């Protein structure tokens, strides 16, 4: 609601056309490679190799130029199961780090404790630890305690790998909220927990949504973590592992990957559209007026 009342306050310039033009141009540049992929996903495998995707514009209505075959092959077998597996992996892998990071980010932003700066620097620095170096030591511990191949093993691993970015983004956002909000609330008698839960979390919805999107995309498109900690047996395969299997030794890559890429994009895009309404003007503005 804050959003809706604020939206019309968007200022329209006297001449928005230069802006529309620039936006249109950049969007086109970004879209062209993806459009190429989209068009190729509907072409016969041989045509993909025979001629550029742009040649379809010469015979747009020639039905023999188009096929759904790539999609039917991609969706043929095992894909529904892989889709379910990926959801089972990704939803908790998004929710868990957000909860944990939000508490930590709040403490880094609004509480004082010894070693705070150093701990925060450490968290930011951990973003640079390459995932590849972490897999073997963790797998060794997982194997020792016997949790390899369980969902919690994958969830917590994704949570661990996503936490530095989450804490960093959330702390930055929470720290930029005006201190007047918190002062007033504490004068009103709210304690840290109440301030966090009732003020900071609602005010941080845009950044929570942003992080949720990125973590979701990351987990959704992850191949390595799922492969190592969950396994590649057909019944636990995630979508990316399924697609890698489909692509085979290079031969299927150009033929099936275009269709496969679009199939696996559907849900991430839906999540993006679903969360986009949280990125609207006025989420925080309303609270600091006056």
């Amino acid at each position: 609601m804050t959003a809706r009342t604020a939206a019309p306050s968007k200022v329209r310039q006297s001449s928005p056309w230069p802006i529309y033009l620039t936006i249109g141009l950049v969007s086109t540049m970004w879209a062209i490679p993806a459009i190429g992929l989209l068009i190729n996903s509907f072409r016969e495998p041989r045509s993909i190799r025979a001629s550029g995707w742009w040649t379809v514009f010469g015979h747009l209505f020639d039905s023999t130029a188009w096929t759904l075959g790539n999609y039917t092959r991609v969706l043929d077998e095992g894909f529904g199961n892989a889709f379910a597996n990926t959801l089972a992996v990704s939803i908790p892998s998004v929710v868990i780090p957000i909860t944990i990071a939000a508490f930590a980010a709040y403490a880094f932003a609004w509480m004082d404790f010894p070693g705070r700066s150093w701990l925060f620097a450490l968290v930011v620095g951990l973003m640079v630890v390459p995932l590849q170096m972490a897999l073997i030591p963790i797998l060794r511990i997982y194997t020792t305690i016997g949790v390899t191949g369980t969902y919690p093993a994958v969830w917590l691993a994704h949570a661990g790998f996503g936490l530095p970015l989450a804490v960093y983004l959330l702390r930055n956002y929470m720290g930029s909220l005006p201190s007047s909000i918190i002062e007033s609330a504490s004068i009103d008698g709210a304690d840290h927990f109440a301030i966090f839960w009732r003020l900071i979390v609602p005010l941080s919805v845009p950044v929570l949504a942003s992080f949720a999107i990125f973590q979701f995309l990351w987990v959704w498109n992850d191949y390595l973590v799922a492969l190592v900690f969950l396994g590649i047996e057909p019944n636990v395969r995630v979508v990316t592992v399924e697609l890698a299997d489909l692509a085979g030794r290079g031969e299927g890559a150009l033929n099936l990957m275009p269709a496969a890429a679009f199939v696996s994009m559907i849900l991430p895009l839906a999540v993006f559209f679903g969360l986009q309404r949280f990125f609207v003007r006025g989420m925080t503005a309303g609270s600091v007026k006056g």
Partner: protein
Amino acid sequence: MTTPPMLKEEIAPGAGGGSPVGPDASKGVLAWLIRITSALILPIVIAVFFFAFGFLKRDDVSKSVQVLVAVVVGIVGVWAMYWGMDRLINLLPDSLGASVRPFVFVGPAMVILSFYLIYPAVNTTIISFKDGRSQNWIGLDNYTRIFTESQYLISIRNSLIWVIVVPVLAVGIGLAFATMADKISARSESVSKSVIFLPMAISFVGASVVWTFVYSFRPEGFGNQIGLLNALGGVAGMSPVNWLAQKPWNNLMLMVILVWLQTGFSMVILSSAIKGVPDVLLEAARIDGATEWEAFWKVVFPSILSTIVVVWTTVLITVWKVFDIVWVMTGGRDGTQVVAQQMVQEFFTNRNNGVGAALAVLLFVAVLPILVINIRRFRAEEAVR
């Protein structure tokens, strides 16, 4: 009721040591013991909670039950545990409680990070002083190698170029786009932002195929060009070019791919920051007669500067760690190697753990200046709010 929140005004500059309240109860060994214990309780409970479910073994129970448990635990359970801990702390004397509470908030994150990232990082550092099979200590030999052999020096040079070029383009375009998109109709904004965001949703393998259809090269006799660049070149009368083999421009060709992928990230975050700039400030500037351009530089830019630094840092670290683009497109041939790709190659293909680990340590150490910048900014920001 507990103590009021420790706001900036109450924190002594550079406070690393003391809590602002009652020195008596919050200092001393016992207080630290309590802090550390309380920091550990939650993560242990969470871990046990997760792993105790023997039935979560992948084959035994239907996925729906598992996901349900995870979502319930992830949201309600974890939250409730924090809440419970918070209530417990309220039972402590006020000043002690206030000094323990931050540790309860930060504890779970730090424990998870210690396990998943700090421990592997330490492990990596140790094996960087060992030989290829991680059996014998060889001192600094691996480091000597990465700073003297030409292939590693080239990869370090290339990585440095990557971390300058890609963040400039990705953050610059993302910022310009987010700013302009903020000024057009809601529907156009939503559509155009989705287009920029789209590459982020494509899986990595998909992205490499996308760019194959841009850079693909076929010499005379192998049929039509299926790569966009060579097709356009053909229209302009050029003979086909093997783009990914043209030194040094092939590096730029690879960087373009990462810019295409990362601009969506910076655009989304910057866009939400721009939307957080209070309307009143903008309106005031406009009433004062500022043009949109001036309003941006005087009002919007300063307000989102800290977000720009955050996005910059994040993109920079992503770029610094990039390996898959190079790995898939050129395998590091023709002068396109970068540090992270060499690291993966040494570690997994060449089975030379020592050099791979030394390259990883180089990655960690090189970001230290970035951390210093962030900490400075973080302190400066707190000093003024």
